[in-house]
């Protein structure tokens, strides 16, 4: 007994790799990785892969030898998790880099505040020949995206919020609630084009064939947005502690007032970020907009009449049928600039939601 105590006690300090050990392993892996990769004809990608594999294996083995298998597993998991993160960064940075590099040159006040009205291939041909600035802009598409998304939000948020309230506060887990939860999940899987076709057909039945307006598009997007709103709001309402509801009931407050004045405000920051997520989910949709909102080059600010462009359809059209087939560069530039713009818009939206969250968040004091 005394002996085990002794060995265990000295184990408090024994067997620990010195701080520089991992750097040494890293350096060794880089050198070895470079060598291996050079054997196959040096390439930065194969080098990175070899070095990474060698480092993960090497550090795990070294740790295992010195610190034992538990630490080795821990080290291995840590390496994998850092690895996953770095791995994920590669494509994501590549996407953002691509969008920035190709989009930034096209972002100008002109691009923001003019439409494509009157823009023809002749103009682009001229631009390319004379090397002048790319004319035409995405104002009409920006406004279209804002309006359509706004309307989609106006439709989806109340429905989604109320449904979530029903599920969390009223349903008591009955069959209807289970059906709603299930089908909401199914709804998250509706292919976006199907949502678009549905909205187009529905409005075709109501207002005659070929009815295409911003509002039809908003309805299509709502079909995609509602389930996201329901799901996130539901989760947020669920984590509002029951104690708060009971506190309100015990004061003689009616249930609906409790929900509106206590439960929802407590969850508002979560709800706001859920709605942001939902908007982000649909703001980049292309396929359903193509069949519901039509496509124009001119400005239309009326969602209830006339066709409307949006940033995603603008991007798509500029890429797939460039304004000048002969000189596609101006169109490509517009497309990437619009993509960048769309991302910036979502970023601002996110910031806005954070602000909302900050303002309404439960105060923790201190």
């Amino acid at each position, binding site marked *: 007994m005394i002996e085990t105590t002794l060995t265990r006690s000295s184990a408090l300090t024994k067997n620990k790799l010195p701080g520089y050990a991992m750097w040494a392993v890293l350096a060794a892996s880089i050198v070895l990785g470079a060598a291996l990769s050079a054997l196959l004809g040096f390439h930065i990608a194969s080098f990175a892969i070899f070095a990474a594999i060698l480092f993960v294996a090497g550090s795990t083995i070294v740790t295992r030898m010195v610190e034992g298998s538990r630490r080795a597993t821990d080290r291995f998991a840590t390496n994998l998790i850092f690895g996953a993160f770095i791995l994920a960064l590669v494509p994501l940075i590549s996407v953002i880099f691509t969008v920035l590099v190709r989009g930034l040159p096209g972002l100008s006040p002109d691009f923001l505040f003019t439409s494509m*009205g*009157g*823009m*023809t*291939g*002749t*103009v682009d*041909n001229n631009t390319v020949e004379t090397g002048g600035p790319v004319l035409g802009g995405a104002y009409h598409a920006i406004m279209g995206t804002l309006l359509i998304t706004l309307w989609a939000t106006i439709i989806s948020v109340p429905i989604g919020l109320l449904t979530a309230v029903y599920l969390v506060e009223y349903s008591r887990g009955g069959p209807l609630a289970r059906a709603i939860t299930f089908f909401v999940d199914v709804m998250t899987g509706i292919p976006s084009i199907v949502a678009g076709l549905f909205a187009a057909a529905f409005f*075709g039945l109501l207002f*005659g*064939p*070929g*009815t*295409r307006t911003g509002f039809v598009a908003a309805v299509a997007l709502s079909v995609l947005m509602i389930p996201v709103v329901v799901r996130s709001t539901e989760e947020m309402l669920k984590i509002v502690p029951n104690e708060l509801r009971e506190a309100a009931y015990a004061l003689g407050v009616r249930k609906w007032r409790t929900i509106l004045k206590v439960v929802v405000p407590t969850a508002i920051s979560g709800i706001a970020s859920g709605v942001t997520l939902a908007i982000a989910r649909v703001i980049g949709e292309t396929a359903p907009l*193509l*069949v519901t909102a*039509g*496509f*124009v*080059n*001119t400005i239309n600010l009326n969602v209830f009449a*006339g*066709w409307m462009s949006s940033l995603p359809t603008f991007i798509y*059209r500029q*890429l*797939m*049928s*460039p*304004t*000048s*087939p*002969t000189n*596609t560069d101006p169109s490509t530039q517009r497309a990437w600039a619009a993509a960048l713009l769309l991302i910036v818009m979502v970023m601002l939206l996110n910031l806005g939601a954070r602000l909302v969250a900050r303002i309404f968040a439960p105060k923790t004091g201190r």
Partner: protein
Amino acid sequence: TDAAGTETSASASTVSGTLSGVGASSQAAAMDAWIAGFNAANPGASIQYSPDGSGAGREALLAGGAQFAGSDAYLKDEETAASQEVCGPDGAFNVPAYISPIAIAFNLEGIKELNLDAATIAGIFRGEISTWNDAAIAGQNEGVKLPATPITVVHRADDSGTTTNFTDYLAAAAPEVWTTEADGEWPAELDGQENAQGTSGVVSAASATEGAITYADASAVGSMGKVSVKVGDEYVAYTSEAAAKAVEASTPVTGEGRPDADMAMDLARDTTESGAYPVVLVSYHIYCTTYQDQETVDLVKAFGEYVVSDEGQAAASDAAGNAPLSANLQEQAVQALRSIKAAS
């Protein structure tokens, strides 16, 4: 045509309203030019065009969801019959509006031009000829240093009018090799080839791949190498004139119940006429013979006539790089458009 032109602008200043068209994406660039040009002359009117695709365009016209359609294929007989429901007793009719040669473009370093006959082209696109230095190719291109690069065929992934016209050419001009019928979808049996969505898709995929060959609207292929196709005994490179010549040689489509104004035509792909480039796409505008009210009729006429006018064709070819309609076709088109009337 001069008369048509002046009359168009004379009546134009008075037209107003909104005209919606849906249809072929091949015309999209030209349509931008037409809309811009027409709007400049007729500030009170507005035209919108959604380049959703030819099928979608015809579908929309027949369902009453659009006042005109752009289509790479003319209305079939049964579609014409169906059009009576929304277009009055005479139904709808086709007017050629946009003619464009289809270039057969390849990506081989240092080679800008190759001569090929239809059978060889068909063989290449069927994958039967798989390297660039194949005897079939070399035999027609003496003096050209062909590499042993494998041929990568890039075709359209989406259903497209370009594919229809290209396969129609192959089926007509090289029936022994190209045994499948013309269709907008690439033959399913030719599996395992590269493909891409849209004209810009195939062009960018082919430009990025050494040894690739594709077919695309001539205006879009840029600096890639182009094939001169064998017509009769000579090899013809695509030019606007050569394309127009091929269209001239085509035969009008006749059929039960087609309105008098209809200008649908079957292209003579196997023409041997000297200087004609038969790999060409004709895209139509499809209008109703009868519209509900006079205002729409005026607007449609004005727009339709502007499109086929010298001015309109020039604007389009400036912007989209296509081939203008011949004077003869312009004349016919104006006549046809004048027959549009309001329901009484």
